[in-house]
């Protein structure tokens, strides 16, 4: 099944969070499964239908639902998950703002929301509330009611503009 001549599997090289990783996956494997199998479990599975956004990752800077993306199609692309944006000692302004504003409850939607916000801010560094709402409209959150999420994203946008960091 996994012989080198097997046409249904392929060894892909992806850049994930700045590191090149190789993985051998069948044609039908979603990016969500491929990433989780590689240990990037911060990419969450909420529906596998493109309805919830919990699985969102950046592919070359743009947020995509990894559950609707086949792993083969992102060969050679740069993939970023929420752990690629920052860590406990050096958080990304979005992560910091989510923490400070209490925009995280169960946190299951958080990786996807932060990724979607990042994607939106790289297009539009000075979003209105309507822009923020739009940018997050593919991401469901059942706990927060979004109020603090909007505040956090607005706050982070300001911080990122100040730091000149919008990418």
């Amino acid at each position, binding site marked *: 099944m996994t012989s080198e001549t097997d046409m249904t599997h392929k060894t892909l090289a992806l850049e994930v969070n700045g590191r090149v990783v190789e993985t051998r996956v069948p044609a039908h494997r979603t990016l969500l499964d491929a990433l989780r199998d590689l240990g990037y*479990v*911060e990419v*969450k*599975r*909420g*529906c*596998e*239908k493109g*309805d*919830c956004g*919990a699985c969102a990752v950046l592919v070359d800077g743009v947020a995509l639902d990894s559950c609707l993306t086949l792993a083969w199609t992102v060969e050679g692309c740069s993939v970023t*998950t*929420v*752990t690629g*944006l*920052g*860590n*406990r000692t050096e*958080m990304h302004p979005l*992560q*910091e703002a*989510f*923490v*400070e*504003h*209490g925009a*995280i*409850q*169960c*946190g*299951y*939607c*958080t*990786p996807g929301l*932060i990724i979607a916000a990042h994607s939106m801010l790289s297009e539009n560094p000075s979003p209105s509330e309507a822009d*923020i*709402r*739009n940018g*997050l*409209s593919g*991401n*469901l*959150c*059942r*706990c*927060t*009611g*979004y*109020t*603090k*999420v*909007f505040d956090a994203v607005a706050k982070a946008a300001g911080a990122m503009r100040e730091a000149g960091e919008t990418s």
Partner: protein
Amino acid sequence: MTDTIPTGKAVTRDALRQVGRPLVRTDAVGKAVGKTMYVGDHVMQGMLHARVLRSPIASARLTRLDVSKARALDRVACVLTADDLERPLIAVDIPGQTGRARLETDQQVLVRDRVRYHGEPLALIAAETVEIAEEAMRLIEFDLEPIPGVYNPEDALQPGAPIVQGTDNVVAAQKIVKGDIEKGFREADRIIENTFQTQFVEHAFLEPEVGLGWVDENNIINLRASTQVIENFRFIADAIGVPHNRVRVRASLVGGGFGGKEDVTMECYIALLVKHTGRPIRLEFTREDSLMGHGKRHPFTMTYRTGVKADGTITALEVRLIADAGAYVFLSPYVLLYAAIAAPGPYRVDNLLIDGRAVATNNMYTSAFRGFGAAQAAVAYEQQMDEIAMELGIDRIELRRRNYLRSGDTISSNYPIESAVWTEECVDRAWAALGEPTEATGHLRIGRGVAAYQQSYGRITYLHDTSQAWVGVEIDGSVTVRSGVTDIGAGQVSALGQIAAEVLGVDLDDVAIYNSDSAVTPLAGTTTATRALYMTGNAVKVAAEALRGRLIERAAKSLGVASDGIDIADGTVFAIDDPGISMPFHELVKLSAADGIHCSELAIFRAPFSDGLDPETGEGQVHPDYVFGAHAIEVAVDVETGEVSILKSVAAHDVGRAINPTAVEGQIEGGAAQGQGFALSEEMIYEEGRLITPSFSEYLIPTSMDVPKVESIILESGTGLGPFGAKGIGEPALTPVAPAIANAVTDAIGVRVKELPITPEKIVAALHAEPT
């Protein structure tokens, strides 16, 4: 063990240093940077993947189930059917630490003969990969012979109706009688009657149910499970035929619950497969599995007949409640009880008759959901109050004011309320905060609504609830809390840390909290019923205070100051009158340890215990206490399309004491969104019992495009029974929202849609039915 019951009255120490501050929750950073391991993120060497085969129809006899081809498939480890189970049943009641008698509600784990709902499990499969498990599932052959089902409670109550449960489909009945109803109606100037309906609602937590099970080196079956209730280990152990101490459940941090992870679901399947294979088993529900695999919010039909004086005083209230229990009992009797107790709302009614029944059908079974029956009752009683106001031509707020329960009054079951009742303050403040009305333009009509409520916190008192916590100090002065409480996203764990930090005079950062392990953290009970803070918060406070007392006594010796003259703050122990006389907290701990002083404490907190209600009148204590508050809403309704937008949303709740105001706001904002979905868009639709909304593209929860920003007004009477006078906010946050929206919509369009959800179609239909 200390078992003092704190009075829970106002705080005695001069100033709170940790409690009451909007601190960053202990779990926030890990979640923000993607480093929090949820249950589904754990894997094990050699683990198998499981799947559940579900019935495609709602009412049938299983005449053939052939799993031989599935078993023969390469790399399939195990296929289980009802015939393979030693014990066919599992209990699905509220688990108790105190061994109170349970209801007779045990239900089949797998279908042996009779299918009663769409999605009822027929077989369990474990295989080397998910794909193989799914292939095996497709190889299972079965014949289902349809049998006539019954799909709404009214039909199920008819003579000759198909019987789903018991002898007459009535799975629970609840009566509450107070005063003289006939006399009350005679005294009335007007009698107003309306029937309101609510729908099947889904919890829609973002993390579908998932678990990982294995047998450890001591032959204990271990489960990591996304559950609100690790103490279901008892039911799981009984179902798989091992002693209770042979099943260990851990929940870590859970990706949302709202009542939907309260009953046993996948844990039992995993435990069975672990037992049969001896190998680690991972089972993750797909979203469709999740929507089909746990109980929903009960639809209620609620008929209110209210007698009122011309001045608006209520003289009598008769309420008929019918709840759709679905195919199995689960928590229906308790949900019905909550609805009945809450039925009059936060209003004084001296002549009362409440008559409720929960009725089995072949719909999906219904069970716990944030608000737990009381939220459905609020949908009725608050719409009824607006209807009464309209009929009598009295201002809606004024009508309420004339009828509010006041501090010291008794509730429906004739039991006095322990704490302050600040309904009036909450309604007035929320209403005022709506400010100037938005102007109507074009097709848009503007309307406003308010709803007050009464929602219990803490479990039913006759179930005898307890909770435990352990607090200890390490020699370096750091603090450890251990408690079985599960954290389902509301910050349950972090709040315990804040309480321990407050009592011991350290920072939240100095506290480490170990939680939700049924084997090694002291059992704390369920994270349900708005009880975690009240119960476990008290247990932590009691434990920390006992420990503090011992440490301060030791400090008194060293500092040469009487122990009542000593305080601890910011890691320093000092004389209150002369802060120069002091020592570092960690020094004190060292001295105490050297003296052999016990530097930890295990405490149990007991809620008030009561006996059952009077079987005739329903009189007696049901809950420890209640939360009161209100939500006010302004909407714009497009009379062409029926579209509703919420323009303003203001909540005012007396939470007793906000341990962490940011977390309280978070509950209020989340409750507002969930209540909005309940009011306007969410409905699990079953046709002949068949679910036709099996994904989030059919079942519509509010998105970032739909919700308003919510303003929270947090009032603190300090009179709750929880730590530092706290009450609770988990369920109360949701309860008034849907009726406030319903009232606002009616105010906007001048006609009432009495069935939730108030969809654009229903609004347009109602507008056309009403000649204007």
